[in-house]
């Protein structure tokens, strides 16, 4: 029983990180049709910022804020510098562009910072576990869960009740109409990227806290997972992206916890297989809308 609950928490924590990343991806995709493969590098920037600010003995809370800020600024810059020239291009063009941007950033980290993993020591008050009944729950996991939940709720509020959020949602639904309503495209793009950068930054903090180190390639894997989450959630659906993230987290933890050891090597293949099964049943993804296409 304890194992089950503990694994449930594991799934929520891992899925939450995926969900944050997937939400950032979906936000940018729904507004400009870009699947940003360089999203993971935003995460890495956030993580490096955290590393250096801790190294330079900034107060921990300031380092957290600084890391988030760095990710946001980097995201906005990325949109301005790299993606504006291809804004109206086809999805494949944008995808390749983001691929190139991602590769350039990875090499830049290797050369400008370090090719090897840099350790990030979290302050001791974040270490250890908390006793809840008969359960031992890791402090960081607990924080990750809480923050993810709080952030998602906050975003729901932003999307529902703020002018910025409503415009964002409208743009995600139908970009051209939103433009007609007099909202500046540049502001929307910048806003979407800033928000996705913030989400990547938060995800980076949890990821690094769990991982203990920062390296130039660390962003690739989680963003690949988030990408899968976006697809399974329904491309372009914000709620779907979050659902997809949690689903993927649950599948991964379940497979690792339950698979007999001779099947364990197949866990990644199996989790993809389950995802494909979901897509076979719902080709448009969990929350995607079915569209009438050309035949």
């Amino acid at each position, binding site marked *: 029983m304890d*194992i089950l609950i503990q694994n449930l928490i594991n799934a929520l*924590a891992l899925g939450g990180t995926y969900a944050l990343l997937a939400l950032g991806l979906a936000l940018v995709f729904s507004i400009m049709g870009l699947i940003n493969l360089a999203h993971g590098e935003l995460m890495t920037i956030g993580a490096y910022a955290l590393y250096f600010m801790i190294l330079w003995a900034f107060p921990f809370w300031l380092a957290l804020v600084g890391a988030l800020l760095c990710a946001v600024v980097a995201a906005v810059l990325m949109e301005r510098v790299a993606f504006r020239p291809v804004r109206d291009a086809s999805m494949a063009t944008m995808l390749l562009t983001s691929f190139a941007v991602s590769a350039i950033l990875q090499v830049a980290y*290797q050369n400008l910072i370090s090719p*090897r993993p840099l350790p990030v020591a979290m302050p001791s008050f974040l270490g250890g576990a908390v006793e809840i009944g008969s359960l031992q729950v890791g402090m960081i*996991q607990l924080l990750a869960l809480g923050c993810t939940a709080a952030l998602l709720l906050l975003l729901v509020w932003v999307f529902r009740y703020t002018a910025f959020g409503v415009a964002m949602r409208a743009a995600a639904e139908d970009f051209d109409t939103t433009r007609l309503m007099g909202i500046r495209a540049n502001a929307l793009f910048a806003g979407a990227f800033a928000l996705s950068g913030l989400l990547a930054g938060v995800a980076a903090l949890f990821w690094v806290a*769990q991982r203990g180190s920062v390296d130039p390639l660390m962003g690739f894997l989680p963003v690949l997972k988030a990408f899968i989450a976006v697809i399974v959630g329904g491309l372009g659906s914000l709620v779907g992206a979050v659902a997809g993230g949690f689903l993927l987290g649950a599948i991964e933890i379940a497979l690792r*916890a339950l698979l007999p050891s001779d099947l364990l090597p197949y866990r990644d293949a199996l989790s993809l297989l389950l995802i494909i099964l979901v897509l076979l049943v719902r080709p448009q993804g969990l929350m995607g809308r079915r569209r009438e296409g050309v035949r």
Partner: protein
Amino acid sequence: MSLKNALAAAAVAATAVGGAGAAGAQEQVRIGFAAGLTGYLAFFDGMVRNGAQMAVDEINAQGGIAGQWPIEFIVRDMRSDAAAAAVVARELVAADIHAMITPCDVDPAIAAGQLAQAAEIPMMSPCASTPTLPGQVGPYMFNLKTADNLQATVLSEFAHEQGYETAYVLLSPDTPYTDLLPRYFIQAFEASGGEVLEVGTYGWDQQDFSAEVTAIANMEPQPDVIMTSAYEPHFPAFITQLRNAGVEIPVLGSDGIDSPTTLGLGEVAEGVVFSMAGYPAEGSELEAFYRDYEERFGEYLPFAFSASGYEAIMLFAEAIEQAGSLEGPAIRDALDRIADFPGVTGTEITYEGQNRVALRDVTLVRVEGGQQVFLRQVAPDPAEVPEP
């Protein structure tokens, strides 16, 4: 026709720029290194490269090997990828190298090694420690690092001394190092009366260890010790998540975590014991070497990979001097006869009668306060060492 000539000329010119010109001076000894300067091996191969460069410069300052053969050290990036390693090795072989240093992981070492083997070029793997490697590649391949089975035996002996009777072992089938070393440990540990309660596995593309940690935390009874040969980035992730879940079972690791990352992890890495190639005690030759390294490259990195790079060049130099020739087979035979060669890591290195797997001492250290604290330097009891 003129176009073809122009192309050929341009090609030759381009190669000459690359320093791989076919027409090198006769008396130069060319030693190639297919190095992972980018990617996950960058940290290890970077240090090997620097250490080797120090040895090269030292020898060349004295007029070359045996005073007559200066060394040309040719380094090519294989991007931590086995296939790219094969490409680079082909180029090095094409550049007529006399000896080769292979990358720090087994697979790329094999990839590069099979090409050099075919060309009868002696090779040294400075940090791949899998004892089966020389057998897989062939008679021109030599291991330098402390072999996995030696490390595993010393770790097992240590575990018994500490009174650990049961163990949890975490391995990954994705690389020979993370697969074989723990298996040797299981063999040695069980042969000497210990019990391995459970074997967990992780994947190369895995950074979340929460499911594994949960499994450990809920083991009944709890194991006395956890053993793994995971290294970066998996070891930091594993140990961080393990400790943060409140599991305080002691952890044994191997020389893959002989890195600043382990020491920089803070409290979570406290108390981890791991095996390594040599400890830089105050006033030791190794410490002096690390200081020289710091002077030259600006960073004090007390990790044996640089020393291994240095030793690899020195062993080649010794073999070439003994052989008195630059012929591959002659160098190989001389290398195979080396015994009790004093390594800069503070241990003697013997190849004679060892099937090209270096026989050397194993050092154990414990992480305390972000520092390595010396525990012991021992040669394991040969009776207890599992067969490779």
